[in-house]
């Protein structure tokens, strides 16, 4: 019977009760993947849209389009104003995914401690 302290005051990092199956999947890794892929999709969208904005930027130096320079400038400023933070929202989603995967890793370390606590006496006898 294990004596390692597994039930204690609430902790997000250390599981409160022993896992019935140490190989049971913690939900963090799937969530992390979902966030990372979602973030990448947002970044891909911003990148694709930036191509359109780049096309408008090229109009600014085109002498034949001097009449529309002011409206083009307004449009570029408008799109860049929300595209830039949107890119970082995508990046934040990826970084949050990394964080949640690490959170799962901390919990995994504690589950490993419990597994080792049970397995070590048996292994020592065999060793």
């Amino acid at each position, binding site marked *: 019977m294990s004596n390692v302290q597994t039930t204690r005051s609430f902790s997000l990092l250390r599981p409160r009760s022993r896992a019935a199956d140490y190989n049971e999947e913690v939900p963090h890794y799937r969530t992390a993947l979902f966030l990372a892929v979602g973030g990448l999709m947002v970044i891909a969208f911003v990148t694709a849209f930036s191509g359109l904005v780049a096309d408008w930027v090229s109009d600014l130096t085109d002498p034949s389009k001097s009449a529309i320079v002011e409206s083009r400038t*307004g449009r570029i400023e408008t799109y860049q104003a929300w595209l830039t933070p949107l890119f970082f929202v995508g990046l*934040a989603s990826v970084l949050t995914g990394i964080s949640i995967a690490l959170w799962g890793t901390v919990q995994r370390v504690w589950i490993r*401690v419990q597994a080792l606590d049970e397995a070590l006496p048996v292994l020592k006898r065999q060793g």
Partner: protein
Amino acid sequence: MATNTATTPYGFSINIGRKATGQTFIHKVANYMWLPMLAMGLMVLASTQVAGIFQADLASDTFPGTASDRADLETLKVLQPGVIFLGVAFLLSGISFLLASVLGAIRWGGGEIQEKHASEVHTPRMPYTAWAFLALMMTGLTLEFASLGFHIYAAVQVHDYYITAVPPDASALHVLGRAETVLSYAAPLRMVGIGFLLAGIVSALYTIGNVLRFQFDRVTSIILNRDAIPEGSGS
């Protein structure tokens, strides 16, 4: 309590005693701080997205527009990167604290296991890479705050320039020059800050790698009832 110290080949020394020492103060801080840091980062970036939509609305009416609209737009443009990078810095700090929590869990859990199943408890002393990790993270976050300060100062100058007239008064050009100068310092500074934070994460991962090496060897020696410590020159 620790009674002896020994060097190891893992890049750090160890304390040898009879009792597990638990986590250090830094690990405890990390256990509490990772979630607030992540939450602050997400809130800052979400608010910059909302501000970006407001800024886009302003930009669509500003060419041509009033001096006040133009001044507000240019002010937001200058502020945006400083705030965004502070949000990213908070997120990276949250990740750094989680890595410190991984180290804390390895130390605490490893100590508990040794106390129960081994005659001696070998506890890693804080290696220089862990100190470097802390220093890099703190420096990175500080630089991001400093960069935000520069952005706020430049934003005030930019507002003062564009509020003069449409087009802005040429006699106020020195104000814009002052803002551009400050921004020239702020832009690389915020990148350096992110670089420090990422370097801190690398240092933390390096430390985790070394601590895992130590722990694998320690578990093996407990199973095989060996008390000999591999010799080395840890700090």
